[in-house]
Every structure is written in C-alpha cells, then in structure tokens.
C-alpha cells in the first residue's frame, strides 16, 4: 500500500467549541450523582446496582490512595470532586429518532470534523456512532446493518433494547473492580457504542465511533462493548477529538471485546485528543482500559492504535487468549511531542493451548515528550506451545525527549516460544539531507522517514484511516526537526 504524504497545517485544527445548550449534573461525585445519571438514562435496577457497587469500590480505592502510580507519567493530583460527570446536549425532543431530529448544530460539528453523519454523504462502507460529551447523538447505517442481524447502536439504546446481551457481557472482560479508572468508569459511564455480530456474519462495513468532548470541566466516561459471536468478523474504528482548553480534562473509557469460537475482531484507534499547548498547558488525560477476550477456539483479536493526541496517555489494550489456538495482536504508534507523556503497551495473557500473540510497538518522541512502552507477556501453566513475538522500536527527534521500554515476561510453561526485539534510533540528519538532495522538502522528508518507521503499524489500518493517521503524524511532529 502506498500512502499519500501530505502535511497539513500545524495547529490543532479540532480545537473549536460548539455553542450548544447542555444538560449537565453539578460537578462532583457521590452516590446521588451515580443515581442521577442512571435515572436520566432510565436504566433498569440491575444496572444501577452494578454502578453503585462500582462506585463503592472506587471510593474504597480512592481512600486507600490506590490511583495507579506505577506508570512513567507525572501529573498533579486530580480533584475528582471538580469534574462534571454527565453533560448532554439538550435535545429538542426526547431522543432523536432519526438524523432529521438531530440538532443541526451537532451535525455541523461532525461535518467540521470531517465525519458527515448524513448517510448520503457518509464515507462509503463506514457506519458511524457519534458520541458527543456523555451521549451518543447519531448512528448511521443502522437499518442496513439490522437486516443482517448486526446490532450497532449507542450503549444506552443497547441497555433498553438488548438488555440480555448487555447484562451477559458487561464487565465480563473488565470487571468493575479491575482498576481505579475502570471502577470510576463503571460507576459513571454515560454512553458509548455497543455492537453485536451474530453467528457466521461478516460485517460488510467498518463500524466506527467518533468521540467528541465539547463541554468544559467535563470528563468523558464512555464504554464500548463488542461481542463477535461464533464465526463472525468485524472491523471497528474509533476516533476522538476535543476543544483546546487550558484546564486538563479526564477521559476514562473502558472497552471490552469478546470473540467466541472462530470469531475475529479488529479494533483500530486514531486518538487525537487535544494534547495541550507547547508548554504543556491543558490537554486530555487519556486513562483508558481496553481489553479483549478470545473466549472461543481459534478466535482472534487485533488492536491497532495510533496515539498522537492527549497530554497524558495511559492505556494497555490487551488480549486474554483463553480459547485454544486463539490469536492476539497489538500494533501501536505512539507520538509524544512538546510536553506530552505516554505510557502505553499491551498485555498478552496466554491461557489456551497453541495461542499466539504479536506485539509491534513504535514510539516516537520529539520536543520534551516522554514515551514509554510497557508490555506484559504472560504464559500460564496450561498454555502449551504458546508463541509470542514482540518488537519495540523507538525513534527520537531532538535531544530533550525520552524513550523507555518496560517489557515484562512471566512464563509458567516450558514449551513457550518467546522473542523480543527492541531498537532505539535517532532520526538522522543524514537521512533528511539525503531526501532534500533529491528535491524533497525537509518537512516532507521528516514525514516520509517517520511514516517509514511506522509502516508495519499503518498497514494494519483500513485505507482511509491510514491516510488520516499519516497526516496526523505530520501535524503532531511539525517543526520538531531543525
């Protein structure tokens, strides 16, 4: 695949604010706030109970100061009582039944972000669920997908329309007690996407969710749950942006994937939350728990992520390889420029026999950026003939940035076959001069060299998004060399 190499303007171009009347709860977190969120969404009793359990667990964690501190990132303590946990654009009617009822201001916002929600103009072959602050505002191509038995809707709708599925799988991969941020999310999550692919169905289009934080002081806590039934295939994408604001905003999402026998899930992320300004003011704290369970035999879950945004990224999309012969993959490009920090990687937990995993991580650091890869490969006793290949490459631009690698290995079965390769290189003046001597402008040369470095990851992305990712990389790194 050849990719177009185009560098766009250097400013964060998604930093605008949509003026829209919002319905939000007062700042702060309490049992009442959790009840209020659940009530606003008209949730059944069992879900409120689950939220409350999560909330109580989180309170315990907070009291015992159990917020994770092991990551290689630095930030001032977060005041959880100053965050608004629910904000929704005020609907003219109850819930929009179709796109015609969605506030035109919202449609215009997504248009501006390059995500047309009008199905006639929508990207061919991509169905989009648009999440604005705490709620999903529109989902495209729903009817077409429903004809094949595919459920793709907002999480709230799934709770109303398909409670049995949600109840069966919610928390089955990331329990509410998993970690500090997962507990917080479980207590206050407001919306997100839900997706179910029935037995034997190959989803004919890319499913995608586009997350947008708009309101000030608001945290975004969405939950995504994808279930691929036996023999089904699905490719899912998510994108995210936020306005430029001077204060930091918290994004603590949870994503759970379940793949049954012979099912395959490909999950791609292009993360472009506001990274803060050059001096590190503002930006999103992206503290996310993503995990997939290969529950069935010969199932496969593949994570691809391009992380260019956020002030701080803390995420480890992982795979539990439970089914015999199941496969987990993790392809990652993480960029840190200016004062950005990233601590990201994966966990591959081999439980079943003949399970395989691949980890390809590319970290790029520029400016004062700090980039850490943290990965765990764990092979349990019963996991005969497990195989893992890990490759972690770091690229440094300039002398003020840092790259760190923390690979962890726990092997309890002697038949395991594990390979790890790591490299650190500096983007060379020789390389840039060579390109310039061939007539290629310096910024294009940097783009080409960096994209070459990331090629193994980009080729895993669906075509349009690979181009998008490449542009983003150019923007994120503009002006970093020279």
């Amino acid at each position: 695949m050849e990719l177009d190499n185009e560098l766009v303007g250097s400013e964060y171009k998604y930093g605008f604010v949509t003026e829209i009347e919002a319905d939000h709860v007062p700042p702060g977190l309490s049992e009442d706030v959790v009840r209020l969120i659940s009530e606003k969404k008209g949730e059944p009793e069992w879900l409120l109970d689950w939220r409350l359990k999560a909330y109580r667990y989180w309170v315990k964690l907070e009291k015992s100061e159990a917020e994770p501190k092991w990551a290689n990132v630095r930030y001032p303590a977060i005041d959880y009582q100053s965050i608004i946990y629910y904000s929704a654009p005020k609907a003219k009617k109850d819930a929009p039944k179709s796109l015609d009822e969605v506030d035109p201001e919202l449609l215009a916002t997504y248009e501006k972000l390059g995500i047309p929600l009008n199905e006639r103009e929508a990207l061919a072959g991509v169905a989009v669920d648009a999440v604005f602050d705490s709620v999903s505002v529109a989902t495209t191509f729903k009817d077409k997908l429903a004809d094949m038995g595919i459920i793709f809707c907002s999480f709230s709708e799934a709770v109303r329309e398909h409670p049995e599925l949600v109840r069966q799988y919610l928390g089955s991969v990331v329990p509410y007690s998993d970690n500090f941020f997962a507990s917080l999310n479980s207590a206050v999550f407001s919306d997100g996407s839900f997706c179910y692919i029935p037995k034997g169905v190959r989803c004919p289009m890319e499913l995608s969710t586009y997350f947008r934080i708009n309101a000030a002081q608001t945290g975004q806590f969405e939950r995504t749950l994808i279930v691929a039934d036996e023999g089904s295939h699905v490719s899912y994408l998510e994108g995210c942006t936020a306005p430029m604001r001077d204060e930091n905003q918290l994004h603590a999402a949870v994503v759970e994937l379940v793949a049954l026998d012979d099912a395959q899930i490909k999950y791609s992320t292009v993360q472009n939350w506001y990274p803060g300004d050059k001096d590190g003011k503002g930006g999103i704290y992206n503290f996310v728990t993503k995990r997939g369970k290969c529950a069935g035999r010969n199932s496969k879950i593949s994570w691809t992520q391009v992380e260019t945004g956020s002030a701080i990224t803390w995420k480890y999309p992982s795979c539990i390889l439970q089914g015999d012969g199941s496969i987990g993959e993790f392809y990652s490009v993480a960029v840190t420029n200016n004062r950005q920090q990233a601590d990201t990687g994966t966990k591959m937990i081999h439980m079943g026999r003949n399970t395989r995993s691949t980890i390809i991580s590319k970290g790029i650091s520029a400016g004062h950026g700090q980039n850490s890869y943290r990965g765990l490969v764990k092979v349990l006793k019963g996991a005969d003939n497990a195989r893992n290949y890990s490759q972690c490459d770091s690229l440094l631009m300039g002398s003020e940035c840092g790259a760190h690698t923390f690979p962890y290995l726990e092997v309890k079965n002697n038949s395991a076959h594990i390979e790890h390769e790591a490299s650190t290189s500096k983007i060379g003046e020789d390389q840039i001069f060579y390109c310039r001597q061939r007539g290629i402008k310096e910024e294009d040369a940097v783009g080409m060299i960096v994209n070459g470095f990331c090629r193994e990851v980009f080729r895993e992305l669906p075509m349009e998004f690979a181009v998008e990712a490449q542009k983003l990389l150019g923007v994120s790194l503009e002006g970093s060399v020279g």
Partner: protein
Amino acid sequence: MLEVRNLHARVEGKEILRGIDLAVGAGEVHAIMGPNGSGKSTLAQVLAGRDTYEVTAGEVLYKGQDLLGMAPELRAVEGVFLGFQYPVEIPGLNSLYFLRAAVNAVRTHRGEEELDAVDFMALAQEKMKAVEMGEDLLRRPVNAGFSGGEKKRAEIFQMTMLEPALAILDETDSGLDIDALKVVAHGINLFRSPERAIILVTHYQRLLDYVVPDFVHVIQNGRLVKSGGKDLARQLEDSGYAWVEEEAGEGSGLGERGPAA
C-alpha cells in the same frame, strides 16, 4: 554551468576548503582526484548544500545563480545531483515511492505534470536496464540491506531518473568490484550529453579508464593544486600524489582553472 570562486569552507572550526577555483561547462566531465582528507568529499557536500559545513568565503554560480544561497532541495530541483559516497538507509520507506516523490518534485518545479504510479513504473523499468538494477531491489526500503555495489548502482539509477544538469558523483567507484564498476561506468556514459556536466570525485584512476574525463584536477589540503587533461590521471596513478605536492610547493599550478563555462 558551474563556477566556483575562491571557495573556503570549514567544519567544527577546522578549515577544509582553502580557496577552490573551478569552472565546469556543459558537456564536460571533470575528475577531481586527491588523497584522503584533501577536501574532495567536502567540496561535493558543500556544492549540494550540506549545512554541517560552513562556507567562510567565496562564491559559487550555477547557471548564473548564487548556488550557496539556495536550500538543498532547491539545488536538487534546479538540476544539481549528488551521488553519495555512503548512501544512507531509510527503513520502511519504499524506494520506488521515495524516488517518485523526488522525480515529481523536479517535474513540479519545472512546471510539468506529476507522473502517476503507472507512468513512473514504465520510466523506471526502462532506466533500470542501463544499470542492471533488479526491480526487487526497488521494492525494498531505500538502500536498506543493499550491498555496497547495489547502493552505488541505485545512486546512478536515481541520477538517470532525475536527469540533472550537473551530477556530482562522490567516490561512486569505491568498494566496487570490476564488473560492478563497468556497469556503473556504463550508466554514467549513457548519461553524458552536451547539455550535462559531470564531476567525478575519485581517489583512483580506475573509474577513469571507463569514464574518460575531459579535465582532471588534483586537490590537496583544500586547494586545487594541478589541473590537466585525462593523462594527468594516469601520471598520478604511476607516480602517486607526492610529485604534485612537490610541484605545488613551488607554487606552479596553484588555483589553475579549467576553461570557462
């Protein structure tokens, strides 16, 4: 085409070029010879615009324009090509993609339409034959895992694709076995034309048996100390650089120039 006047350049405070005068006209092939460390490669790099070298005095006119005031990429699209002594590897960047970007940069600068992938491939396949480049090599990342000979052949191939007016080939012959040397020389000879000039920077006479130069210059301690015809190269091969040094010490031939451009 190219006029170098009293060029001085230094790196890390150390003066390497100490007053180079050289005139190269269209259609001419000039060989610049000299011992290691004499400033041959520095001259090539300075002409291409490498900013590790600081030009402290002198000027360079290329087609009447001030070459030293131009960014490296502008020099390139204006037709100045440097064949690198050590072509750098760029992992992950496909050779063909890279070369198409380069060719299209030149074409855009000339106001020509960019070549699409199909037309570009057709052109590349035609030019590949001259330097016996395998297509498989071009499907790999730029210079990645190429042998020394493959890298040099790839440089000559790039030159024929980019069709520069002035090609500066920095030790293109070094590290080549005799067969590879013949292939490279063949490529250079095909490239020779009345509109183009070539500067061959070389340590040895060997390449000049196959690419016969119009002028030979000897560089020593940052100055051109002797210039002459193709026979000068043979004299150097027989007697080494020492006798030139002695002559230079007497002051003859210092700053001697080829014919005006």
